């Protein structure tokens, strides 16, 4: 088990501890929202990474469509979609918990919540479709097509809900939109979740490749042509 990516995972874990400790215990409380805003130090990095990983999945999906034998790309795609799902679930739960004390409700159909929820459900649907598809080629192409279709929908959902004008959510936070004391814990956690995400993707992709080789003759070399049937008669 001496996979090189474990180093990345360890680095991510270290950063997560560091950023969390910093954010939770060493930042002054926010004036209006008191300590509730410390959820930000995990929520915002999760949001950035969920979106980033979903975008990466989209890029991989486009790649799969152009690859002649997409085995490795396909494994990476499936792994990425899966990790994006996990991050989205984390994101939604954090967001709900944040919503209760600040908006007085766990859930609201605001653009960001809705589009995140749709992305989670749509990506879960992609994984479900994948599990029902038969044959490696079909699995690969269908996963890619469904991922593209689902990803393109996310901004449309966002926009369509935004048009209903009921938004409670504040603007997307970035290091420049929050006070500078909060930059470093945010950055640390953002990179922590990014590294952990990459680590997870690599491990899942490895597993998917191993499992695929288990039931597809892909790994054994194609038998060489034994007989030349030059039927010229």
């Amino acid at each position, binding site marked *: 088990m001496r996979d090189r990516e474990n180093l990345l995972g360890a680095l991510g874990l270290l950063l997560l501890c560091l950023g969390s400790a910093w954010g939770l215990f060493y930042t002054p409380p926010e004036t209006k929202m008191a300590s509730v805003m410390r959820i930000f130090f995990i929520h915002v990095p999760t949001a950035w990474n969920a979106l980033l990983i979903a975008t990466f999945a989209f890029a991989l999906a486009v790649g799969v469509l152009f690859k002649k034998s997409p085995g490795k790309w396909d494994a990476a795609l499936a792994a990425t979609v899966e990790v994006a799902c996990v991050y989205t679930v984390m994101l939604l739960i954090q967001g709900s918990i944040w919503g209760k004390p600040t908006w007085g409700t766990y859930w609201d159909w605001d653009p960001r919540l809705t589009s995140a929820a749709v992305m989670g459900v*749509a990506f879960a649907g992609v994984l479900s479709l994948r599990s029902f598809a038969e044959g490696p080629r079909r699995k690969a192409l*269908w996963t890619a097509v*469904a991922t593209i279709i689902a990803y393109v929908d996310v901004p449309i959902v966002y926009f369509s809900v935004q048009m209903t004008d009921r938004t409670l959510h504040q603007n997307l936070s970035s290091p420049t939109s929050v006070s500078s004391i909060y930059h470093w814990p945010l950055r640390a956690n953002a990179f922590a979740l990014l590294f952990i995400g990459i680590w997870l993707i690599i491990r899942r992709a490895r597993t998917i490749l191993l499992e695929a080789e288990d039931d597809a003759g892909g790994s054994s070399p194609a038998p060489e042509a034994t007989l030349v049937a030059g039927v010229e008669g």
Partner: protein
Amino acid sequence: MIRPALGVLRKDLKLDLASPGRLAAVVLFSVVTLLLFSFAVGPDTSSLQRNTAGYLWLALTLSSTLALGESFRLEVEDDALEGLLLLPVPPAAIFYGKATANLLFLLALAALLVPLSFGLYGASVRGSFLELAVIIALGTAGLAGPGTLYSAMTARARGSDVMLPLLLFPLVIPVLIASVKATSLVLLGDPMGDRGAWFALVGCFDLVYWTLCGLLFGKVVDA
């Protein structure tokens, strides 16, 4: 490209007419759904009237998965889809032909459901009938386009009955939101003149997905 697509459309319409029982079942299903909404909400006429657009689009969306699923079940029953590809018909032509056939079916269904829902819920049209027709055409196109692509996959996957709604429903949320809003504004009146934006939103969704699905359909049937 257009000629084979029209050929596929013509064939699908012929298939629809060849077994009217299949269609009747879908139509009946949608009618029953409309009835169920009025029972679920209770006899409160004003809320039924206010929510007519929502119930109408829900009935259309739920029935669309049945119609879409059926349309591809016929293609995979005896590998007819493979036969089409061997003829050869370009995959994009198959997609546009079938998607248009599904759209026409949903339009016919809507033409039946709209007056029925008016009768059941006591709604009426304050705006223009033309606008109502336009938003129904745009909205059903939003269901038929991606629905055709997805059913090409789910019809050939195990567990196909669950898969199609599972994939399609989250995807068409924008279509549902915008179509319901626009239809509501047409039915109940639109003092602020907001409906144009909703029409445009569904129109954009249609444009994006009818293009994208046409491009991707080849990859779906190739596997």
